[in-house]
């Protein structure tokens, strides 16, 4: 049987969007996804909530681990166009972070239109506040400290390389349980 989506699509999407917006505006600072939605494995309910909030027939989505149930569920509830090509994806769902494809495989935008770039939603193990890496940049008053658990070390090397191309780049939303953290392309990682 097909799982349900939001009980109140208009208001649930709105509440989630406002938190997603604040997450993107205040990077490296975890916040809760207000309304989560049932999701077939391997997609977490908070990830599904983000997809329901942002995706529709005007967007393309790339799934790292596609399966029929997920595809049917997403098509039915959002009408989103699934794509096999990472480069064509507006959104990408990374459900197996250890096998995450390199960031360079996703659209970074064009110099005249850097917004034509992918947003990656990455499921991770957890967040630890006030410990680990230090971040600064737009949206961060002084410095945010955060550990995103379960990311491969290569990820941070790739992201550092990506930052050399600003304003081109991809934006990331990490999901762990019902919490999320955004890392837009402009967030700088402070080296010790």
């Amino acid at each position, binding site marked *: 049987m097909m799982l349900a989506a939001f009980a109140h699509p208009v208001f649930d999407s709105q509440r989630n969007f406002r938190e*997603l917006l*604040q997450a993107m505006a205040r990077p490296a600072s975890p916040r809760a996804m207000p309304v989560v939605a049932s999701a077939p494995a391997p997609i977490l309910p908070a990830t599904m909530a983000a997809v329901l909030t942002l995706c529709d027939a005007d967007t393309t989505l790339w799934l790292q681990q596609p399966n029929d149930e997920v595809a049917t569920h997403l098509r039915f509830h959002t009408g989103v166009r699934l794509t096999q090509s990472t480069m064509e994806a*507006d959104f990408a769902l990374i459900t197996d972070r250890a096998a995450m494809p390199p960031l360079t495989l996703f659209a970074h935008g064009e110099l005249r239109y850097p*917004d034509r770039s992918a947003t990656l939603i990455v499921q991770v193990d957890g967040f630890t506040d006030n410990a680990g890496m230090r971040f600064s940049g*737009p*949206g*961060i008053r002084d410095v945010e400290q955060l550990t995103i658990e379960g990311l491969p070390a290569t990820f941070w090397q790739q992201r550092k390389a990506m930052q050399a191309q600003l304003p081109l780049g991809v934006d990331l939303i990490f999901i762990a349980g019902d919490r999320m953290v955004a890392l837009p392309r*402009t967030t700088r990682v402070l080296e010790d």
Partner: protein
Amino acid sequence: MTSDYNFAFLDENTKRMLRRALLKAVALPGYQVPFGSREMPLPYGWGTGGIQLTAALLGPDDVLKVIDQGADDTTNAVNIRRFFARVTGVATTERTREASVIQTRHRIPETPLREDQILVFQVPEPEPLRTLEPREAETRTLHALADYGLMHVKLYEDIAQYGHIATSYDYPVLVDGRFLTSPSPIPKFDNPKLDRSPALMLFGAGREKRLYAIPPYTHVESLAFDDHPFEIQRWEQQCQLCGSGDSYLDEVVTDDRGSRLFVCSDTDYCGQRRAERAA
């Protein structure tokens, strides 16, 4: 023929389109994101960009404030507030402190904003280079190359000719050291409030179909030269209603013999101060 509109007027597809564009705008501070601006029931040039952004933001728990020229009671502000009260039923307020979303035309409130507030600007012309280069194809390229020489030359010529930078409102800013951005036609008096603001600031240009953002705590620099630092407007007068010496003042003509009166442009700020003094 139905009068049954969705919550906040826009359909959910349009809101999602706006929301996706807003997330990209926040991720690219000061960069103008093209968006599929819709025809709204208010005219282009009268705040349709701000209205679409507000419509994409609002939920039932929000408290909305709308100001035009700093005042809640100017006709266009009243009209936009009436529109949202009608299509969302959200609570509205004239108090800056009580609002969760503030839509504004031409001013930033004097009362400092907080982290839990969002300021939405109505923008007539989002492209700060437009008067210097009318072709969008060209201005896009200049932004891509971060080539803002045109603007520096313009400001420098002002200094050479007038001894001052002759831009008093819509004074261009550099956001996060990267994108040259129009702060909308706020007086340059308000420009310092853009820098490292605790509140998220969103900008919507409906007719020009562009939106952009300045995230909280983002460095926003008003263009200037070492020997001609950026300065804001100052008045010799104080507000004649509340006595404020540090707010933006409206000049009111009181008779036909040249008499003038200076009062706060921010009516809520002025009213609060008078209430405090009376208490």
